């Protein structure tokens, strides 16, 4: 394993680097939280970084015809190939450095993918990348819970009951997305015990997120991060509330912040406090603010709540490890 960069943890927002390496001039929606994830990700990683982006909003909206908001080198890769691109780039850098064709220095490799590109199509490539321990790379899945770029189709990460172009509520069938959100980070942590770092994050907790990126890039080997990004377009809310909805997702217990470091699972921040017994906010606080849940009846809200309650009360570890068959 080659050496990684040394990136020190930030102790509070005031230590955030001033440099913007993902700057203004991208065509994302007003209040786009995924754009904020990009900004924080590269702020934490620093200038000696190569970013690879699989197809999705953060590719299409950011780098349309002859324009870019990136200061660091960035390359587009196909929808399902964030894992392959990250692995190939890390391997290529290693070979070039070994052959002395470029200066031997640690360069961060980050590949990002959306929930469609990562949790659905690119899962196999990500899985493959996470088994190659000799390469240092980070795959970041920014999850806005739908194929938002192509106008909001259901993905494996869309929550139960959410309105989308593929699941419009009708009079006969009110709930058209009957699938529950995929537990991508937990699944990858369980399946790749050799991967040294897998974490979830949310840009509303900026310092926590940036520190997770830094840890993922410094720990060595392939790593994975999954962020929940409120999406004003697909979730249908006033863009002003992007930050607040991220906070609500965590405080209601719908989104669990955790990291899996060398196999050890730790819940962070508000999720840790909730696990210790602090009362969770009712999920209704989160659901009623979004147009995609506007068709929910009180029974639907109660069902959603019961699933979240079960996750916190019955799972081995909330949001990470579901109950096993030997559990009561």
């Amino acid at each position, binding site marked *: 394993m080659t050496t990684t960069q040394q990136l020190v943890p930030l102790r509070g*927002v005031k230590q955030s680097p001033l440099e913007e390496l993902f700057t*203004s001039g991208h*065509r*994302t929606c007003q*209040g786009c939280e995924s754009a904020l994830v990009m900004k*924080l990700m590269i702020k934490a990683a620093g200038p000696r970084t190569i970013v690879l982006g699989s197809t999705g909003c953060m590719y299409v909206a950011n780098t*349309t015809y002859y324009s870019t908001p990136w200061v*660091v080198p960035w390359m587009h890769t196909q929808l399902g190939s964030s894992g392959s691109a990250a692995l190939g780039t890390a391997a290529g850098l290693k070979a070039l450095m070994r052959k002395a064709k470029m200066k031997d220095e640690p360069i961060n490799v980050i590949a990002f993918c959306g929930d469609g590109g990562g949790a659905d199509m690119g899962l196999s490539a990500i899985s493959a990348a996470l088994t190659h321990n000799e390469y240092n790379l980070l795959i970041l899945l920014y999850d806005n819970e739908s194929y938002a770029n192509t106008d909001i189709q259901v993905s494996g990460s869309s929550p139960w009951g959410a309105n989308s172009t593929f699941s419009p509520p009708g009079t006969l069938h009110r709930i058209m997305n009957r699938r529950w959100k995929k537990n991508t980070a937990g699944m990858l942590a369980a399946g790749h015990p050799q991967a040294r770092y897998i974490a979830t994050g949310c840009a509303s907790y900026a310092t926590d997120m940036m520190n997770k990126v830094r840890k993922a890039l410094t720990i060595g080997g392939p790593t994975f991060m999954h962020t929940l990004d409120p999406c004003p377009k697909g979730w*249908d809310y006033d863009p002003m509330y992007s930050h607040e909805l991220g906070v609500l997702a965590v405080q209601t217990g719908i989104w669990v912040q955790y990291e899996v470091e060398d196999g050890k699972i730790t819940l962070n921040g508000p999720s840790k406090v909730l696990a210790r017994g602090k009362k969770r906010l009712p999920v209704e606080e989160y659901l009623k*603010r979004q147009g995609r849940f506007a068709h929910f009846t009180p029974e639907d809200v109660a069902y959603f709540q019961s699933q979240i309650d079960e996750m916190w009360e019955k799972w081995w570890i909330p949001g990470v490890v579901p109950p096993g068959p030997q559990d009561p």
Partner: protein
Amino acid sequence: MATYAVEVVYRGIFQKSLSRNICRSIVLASRLEGKIGTAFGRYGDSPERNGIPAKYFAVVAGDPVELEEYLAQYEPTEVDVSIVVDDTLCKGVESWAWYGLQPINALTKPDGAVLVTSYQEPEQLKEDIHVKDQPYDLAILKGSKSFSGLWVYKDDHTDVRILGALARICPDMVGLDSYKEAILQQWGDQRKVTSAERAFERVRRSPVEPGEGNPAEPFSFDLPGWEVMEEALVIPGIEPGGGFRGGEGGFEPVRSSVFKKFSTRTMRPVVNFETCTKCTLCWLQCPDSCFDVTPDGLYDANMEACCGCGVCEDVCPVPDCITMVGEEAFSDNDSQHDHWRRDRDDYMGWLRDKIALGKSETRSHGFHHVGQYDEESQTVEVGYDD
């Protein structure tokens, strides 16, 4: 008969259903008159982004051959009426896949019309609308911005009021009676017919002479063709930024020179630098990296990069430090921090004036909570204007 085309310029996603309703109704009404038409969104605007200006077109022709003939082009290059469903779009539109700022009247035919829903007076709107070298009419239908979200439609009758006004402005395309019939067919709501009738009576129209309007040159640049691109379509990255205004300390990023995003804005943040606690949250949480950091740790929102999402106002822990103010209150994109440094008292007076003028009690940006549109629709008077 002649072929007629209208465009609806709207805020992406927020007004997508509204503009589709308008264009579809025009086509349905034209069929009642034995004509033929089609309605379509502009290809280059898809996928839409919240707030980023987009266009929908409706074309009405006498027979299928005329229609086909007209549609044998990428998109209409001239329209009889440019419909503007948010008056802040009058400052010009920088579309999603378009480069540079396009005047709102760019496609309006000579002697055509620009129809705006607004509470502003014609004189005020003419300060925003760029000059044109041919005459046209400015028609104003009094009304607020109708920002419904995507999944839930706020039915405040703006769609049918536009139809009523169109019947007045461009009666040869489709007449009022056909619109009324088409409205009944679609919604079965007599109240919506009444709203259309009242808009027909109340729309105000005033001529705009050549050369009248905003003389500013809209921001533009040359599109590089494929032959000048580097191998593998490599394009230069953005330069790393440096100190505030090129000096020591603080930070000012270099920004994209080909997409500015300010025409997406319907509100802008105004900052009270006196009460700022330098907590960093507005700067850190801004998805568009629009805040320049001053050497003394204040944050100056760059008005060419700000798209007016309002996250900064929401995360600011100090009451009244950052306030979102309607874009109508401003005529430039100048730095607020420079103004404040130049003359603090003058700046504080300016700040108070702008907040008094343009701070609205309610946000116009779509969905806030379940039941909100029902509550708001109940307060809507049929065919309301002033």
